[in-house]
């Protein structure tokens, strides 16, 4: 099942918005951090994990979701948040640590929470699995529509908690989908040095559920695989596992010298950048004109710039607000 024209436009828009967001963050991130890099300084302090290159996974999956569906994301969450519909101004403000942010500055970029679209993050590897399975359990028990989707990286499958949650979801036949973004690197450790098998979708056999691996970061193939997984979940047919071969065009974090990358790897990945590739595909198939895609790019840029301006111009939280919201 291929995405419709409108869906393709939506996917392209969200990929471009995400990339523009990351590029803008990257440009601002080093403000105040030169000439000597200090992570604590500048308008965006702390670690920053950018998702450049991984956009097809987020849009290919979230094209099938609505606000009621529950997504848990990773320490690298921006593309997933944007595709899930997290409010962009509040998200930018949270990343700037401002009072107007999603959590008033308590969470930051690894802890984005938007109750309006059922989106949550954890900065701990594989630990979004349990809550996404729990959301699926909640919908199942309450007989309410909605699926739980956990995005994880390929490194997460080697965590015990990943296995526990997969087994629980399968044992209870829950409306759950695990999406593995295989960007080939766990910080500096390549997948083949950390993982006994090359195709993590094969692990689905251990739980008696379908598993599929999507090659080459293809947004259309991701869309198709996710469509079937989410259809199954909504129909009460149980969980599915999807692994996507995707590309980490950035370092693990901003400031990562990436000395561990083989020479030429990044050039090869940039040559396969999914955004110009999708643009070319849409033009070739005739689902969009140059003018339409240019307009999407311009609108996305304007939206990101407005969000960043909102974040920059927002006030810092009152320091003593750190002492609030510990309990409900």
């Amino acid at each position, binding site marked *: 099942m291929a995405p419709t024209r409108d869906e393709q436009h939506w996917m392209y828009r969200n990929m471009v918005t995400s990339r523009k967001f990351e590029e803008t963050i990257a440009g601002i991130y080093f403000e105040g951090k030169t000439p000597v890099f200090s992570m604590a300084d500048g308008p965006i302090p702390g670690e920053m994990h950018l998702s450049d290159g991984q956009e097809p996974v987020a849009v290919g999956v979230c094209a099938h979701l609505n606000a009621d569906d*529950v997504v*848990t994301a990773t320490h690298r969450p921006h593309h997933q948040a944007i595709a899930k519909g997290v409010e962009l101004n509040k998200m930018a403000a949270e990343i700037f640590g401002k009072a107007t*942010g*999603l*959590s*008033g500055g*308590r*969470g930051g970029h690894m*802890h984005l*929470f*938007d*109750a309006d679209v*059922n989106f*949550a993050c*954890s900065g*701990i590897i594989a*630990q979004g*699995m*349990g*809550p*996404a*399975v*729990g*959301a*699926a*359990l*909640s*919908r199942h*028990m*309450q007989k309410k529509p909605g699926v*739980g989707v956990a995005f994880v990286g390929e490194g997460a499958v080697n965590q*015990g*908690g990943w296995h*526990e*949650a997969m*087994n*629980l979801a399968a*044992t*209870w036949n829950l409306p759950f989908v695990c999406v593995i973004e295989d960007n080939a690197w766990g910080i500096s450790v390549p997948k083949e040095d950390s993982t006994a098998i090359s195709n993590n979708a094969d692990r689905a056999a251990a739980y008696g559920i379908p598993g599929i691996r999507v090659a080459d970061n293809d947004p259309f193939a991701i869309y198709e695989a996710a469509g079937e997984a989410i259809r199954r979940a909504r129909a009460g047919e149980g969980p599915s596992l999807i692994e996507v071969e995707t590309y980490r065009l950035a370092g693990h974090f901003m400031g990562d010298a990436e000395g561990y990358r083989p020479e030429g790897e990044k050039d090869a990945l940039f040559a396969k950048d999914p955004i110009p590739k999708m643009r070319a595909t849409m033009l070739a198939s005739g689902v969009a004109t140059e003018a339409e895609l240019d307009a999407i790019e311009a609108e996305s840029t304007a939206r990101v710039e407005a969000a960043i301006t909102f974040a920059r111009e927002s006030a810092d939280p009152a320091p003593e607000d750190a002492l*609030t*919201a*510990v*309990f*409900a």
Partner: protein
Amino acid sequence: MNVPNERKLTIARAMAEAVAQEMRVDDGVFVMGEDIAALGGVYGNTRGLLDEFGSERIRDTPISETAFIGAAVGAAQDGMRPVVELMFVDFFGVCFDAIYNLMAKNTYFSGGNFKVPMVLMTSTGGGYSDAGQHSQCLYGTFAHLPGMKVVCPSNAYDAKGLMTAAMRDDSPVVYMYHKSLQGMGWLATEPGATVHTPEESYTVEIGKAKVAREGRDVTIVSVGMGVHHALNAAAQLEADGVSAEVIDLVSLVPLDRDTIRASVAKTGRLIVVDEDYMSYGVSGEVIASVTEHDISVLKAAPKRVAYPDVPIPYARVMEQFCLPNPEKIIAAYQEMNAA
């Protein structure tokens, strides 16, 4: 004391009754854990629930604490009120991320936009030669980390009311029940824990300590099993003409510092009894609550009767040597006055 129409329950039955009553009125409440369905919980606290509510709401889990406690976080955030069991508190090692990085932090990290209304029940305590992976209390470990309330009943009345309060709380509550108070036939139970427990549903306020016994000369503060050691010691001290006040903390988080301070202001002497490890824990926190506030109320340096900083041994004589008991409390009082 004889109470007309007295209805004595064990803590195990009181907990199960509270859960059943809440499940009848709130469809969002359900129970997950290992051996909590057909077996009714290793410590009896879910007995009878499967028969009444069925396996959809009383869910035996795989031995996967990270998954089912994490799932409880997700279900709680999605509007349900899960009650989950960590069979022994010692098992926190396999699942603490779900507890302190998710359950305890998601409310804060969401700026209050996500609520995590769940109860994590867990058994504590030793004294029956189960050694150091099945006998710890770890009160301080859980109470130290912000974002979760922590309660520890010493008797069935409080056990029922605290459980009801915990299930109705919009924040996560860690409910720590002591094995030696539970009322299991195969494990000796402190008789003072099995008390009159009203049949109707009621709550005991979380964060409010109780004066378990009034006195004038010394304040003995404890929680859970330690309250019974303190009451036992107080009865013996009374024979020697010493009037001991016993404070049952009931909750560790929030800690009712006002009740502790008011008592010590009256008695001038403080002994803390804690079956958890001595250092960096509840006993130090209770003493600091007094000394930071007004050290001048103290007539003597405070004393601690706590578990020494060693893993819990198996051999009976070794474990009993380490555990708090009434004799150690009396000795602490005597040392306090000899100084």
